[in-house]
């Protein structure tokens, strides 16, 4: 459940800051939610990756659909990899590592005493 909360929070938070601010500000949001939700490293990474990756995919998809892929099909021939995949990987990796860093900085210590 916490995984889902973190992912949704990341999507909403990143959408809000990215609307106004440069691309890398989404890393700060992904980091912050990684820190707050205290998920395990792998979970936090996945959440950050999916959160930012999905957000970037959806926004890109909306532009692509509205413009009938006019630019996407050209860029796909410039880059060796499909540009949607590339967009998701780039956004996802940064979001994932930022979320991982956040969770690692605020690891639950309690579990050790059980």
């Amino acid at each position, binding site marked *: 459940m916490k995984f889902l909360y973190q992912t949704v929070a990341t999507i909403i938070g990143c959408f809000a800051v990215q609307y106004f601010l440069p*691309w890398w500000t989404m890393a700060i949001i992904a980091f912050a939610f990684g820190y707050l939700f205290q998920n395990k490293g792998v979970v936090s990474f996945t959440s950050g990756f999916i959160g930012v990756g999905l957000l970037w995919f959806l926004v890109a998809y909306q*532009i692509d659909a*509205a413009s009938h892929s*006019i*630019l996407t099909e050209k860029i796909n*021939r410039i880059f060796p990899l499909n540009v949607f995949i*590339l*967009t998701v990987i*780039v956004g996802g990796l*940064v979001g994932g590592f930022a979320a991982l860093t956040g969770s690692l900085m605020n690891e639950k210590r309690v579990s050790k005493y059980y």
Partner: protein
Amino acid sequence: MKVKTLLSLVVTAALIYALNRSWNFGKPIPPLGKFLDPFHGFWKNAENKVPPVVTLKGLRNEVSIIYDSTLIPHIYAATEEDLFFAQGFVTASHRLWQMELQTHAAAGRVSEILGPATLDFDRGQRRLGMVYGAKNSLSEMEKDPVLKTVTEKYAEGINAYIASLDYERLPFEYKLLDYTPEPWTPLKSALLLKYMAKTLNLSEKDFEMTNALKLFGRETLELLYPDNEHVGDPIVDNPTGWKFSPVSLDSDSASAEALVKITPMEKSSPEIGSNNWAVAGSKTATGSPILCNDPHLELNLPSIWYIVHLSAPGYNSMGASLPGAPTVISGFNDSIAWGETNAQRDLVDWYKVQFEDNTKSKYLSDGNWRPTRKEIEKIDIKGKESFYDTVVYTHHGPVTYDESYHGKSEKNHFAFRWIAHDPSKELLAFYLLNKGKNHSDYLKALDNYSSPAQNFVFASTNGDIAMRIQGKYPVRRKDEGRFVLDGSKTSTEWRAFIPNEQNVMYKNPARGFVSSANQYPADDNYPYYITAEHYEAYRNRRINQRLSEMSKITPQDMMHLQADNYNLKAAENLPTWISMLDVSKLNTAEKKAYEKLKAWDFINSVDAEGASYFEAWTRVLVPMIWDEIDSARVTLPRPTYYTTFKLVREKPELNFFDITSTPEKETATDVVRKSFTAGVKMIEKWREDTKKEPMWADFKDSYIQHLARLEPLSYHVRHGGNGNIINAHSKRNGPSWRMVVSLEKSGVKAWGVYPGGQSGNPGSPFYHNMIDVWAADHYFNLHFNTAKNQSLPFSMISQTIKAK
């Protein structure tokens, strides 16, 4: 902090850093994070939002812009200042990247964007004195109060657009190549015009001709490279019309005689040229003149042209503009229309310079050592250290070629004299044409025009038609300009210029039309010596023949003529070549080719296979004939197609027909046969490679290339035509703008099209929407009117620019 926490933090930071900057691993990679971000990156360039209202500083009053369904802007301003501001703003909104790239190219600054591959090009531009020429023009423009305002307001408009940009709204190419635009200046407009001058008026073959004279002797030289091929009608045929006393020079023009070993820079394609004509009311269906223009240039995207309609009190013109220069260049207003073709004329000289010593501080001139001026050119290169080049200037101009540039084994130095280095103000000519009302306004406007020399066609609603070959022309002595000159004698220099009123021109000729297609300019009675790198021999004859035959001409007839695919070159030569073949010895493929060629009607239509066989044959035949010229140890000029094929017909025993690499001695018949075999093989190979029949459009494979040479942003086009055909569409060059204007008293009607689109943005549907229309030889109606409310019925988007 734990190690793994630290590691994760470092990885995150490193990722952000790496994705926020560009890289070059053999291929340049944009900053991927920035570039792929769907909120601000390249994705945003697929949204083409034109804000309905913008507020800008620098305007006096509100300006309205109505974009019609072709994205042609109709700009309505209250003053001319606001009009040119808006022209700058609107043009930049759609073409900024191209405008900057072209002016960077003019100034020799491409390497700072594209890297070391273009260094030689950049050095060449610096050594041709492109910036030097542009600065000379700019200082002249600034002396004229009207031009100063026009160019400054235009620059302000562009800068207002640049100032409004953030990363999200940056044109696509800036994002891909990772740089940002710099402020526009009037110097950039001057540079753009010099770039056009370089494309159009730099053609010369002085080094090649010097070598040819030395190696072949005078008689052969005149046979292979005559000054005038005397083919077809000259542009102005007016033998009794030259009633003035010409300027004469008494001194001789001595030429340097040693062989020249430099490798000249790449020249403009001979396929660059143009057609224009105007027919008088006596020949048209409406009784009003019709004017047509189609300039043939290299076809690129974004297109060299941008259609605008400019309207302010006292000013109302429409047509093709050059992004980067204010006013309309080929167009019309409510009274007149005008258009240009290139005026072929030698406007370049090379002077052999003798320096006192290696420091190149002084050079010999009339027995004295004159000081040189040195310009240190810093060429920035993307991803590398800057390159410094010293360009030495003499009073002739820059020393372009020396031991460090294209002349490794050459011990001599050559200074470059070019008409486009002189102060000039051609923009004033265009400004005045845009406002012109009649023939005398046209003449007055053109008095301000120097370079690049053009054949200006004219027609007016009053019923006049006219042609004027306008440029600043040195008075030349016989042979002057054909060969390298001795730079140590001032007596060899340009001493005087032909007075404007003595330039080649006429009005309302008896034949009922005027036309030009880059042919020889004047009849033999014109009193000045004329020479050029080459003249076009075919298009003009076809145009004049058709215009003579036609009557009750409609604009549609004129559109058909612009799209005419009749191949006069083939019609004139193919029957002779075919008769030279030995039909009994042909193999199956050759037999088939022979049949196709015999059945061909000389029309280079999309599906004509005969046209492909003829083209392949020509491509092999010409180098086979001129093998001794192409393989010479010094650079030599190739004769024109016309002269080459005339020699095949008339002097089949000429020594040049011998192929030097074979022991036997060939004649014209032998090379025609051998080249036929090789040409058919070329087609067979093509057929195997492509698995297609050699239809002309497929074999020609015309290509419209993006200016950064990116294949995914470029287009292949199936279209007829070729060089030397009225529809002059070869593989890379062709009619870059087609315009037909009917000058009816009840209202001027006009049609136009070009192979591109009004938007320079590859993410816009208007990036290439005109290509197919153009290739189908169709046109767009150019909605011309006098008031904003007349534009509203066909408005697609409207924008208001408010003054801040």
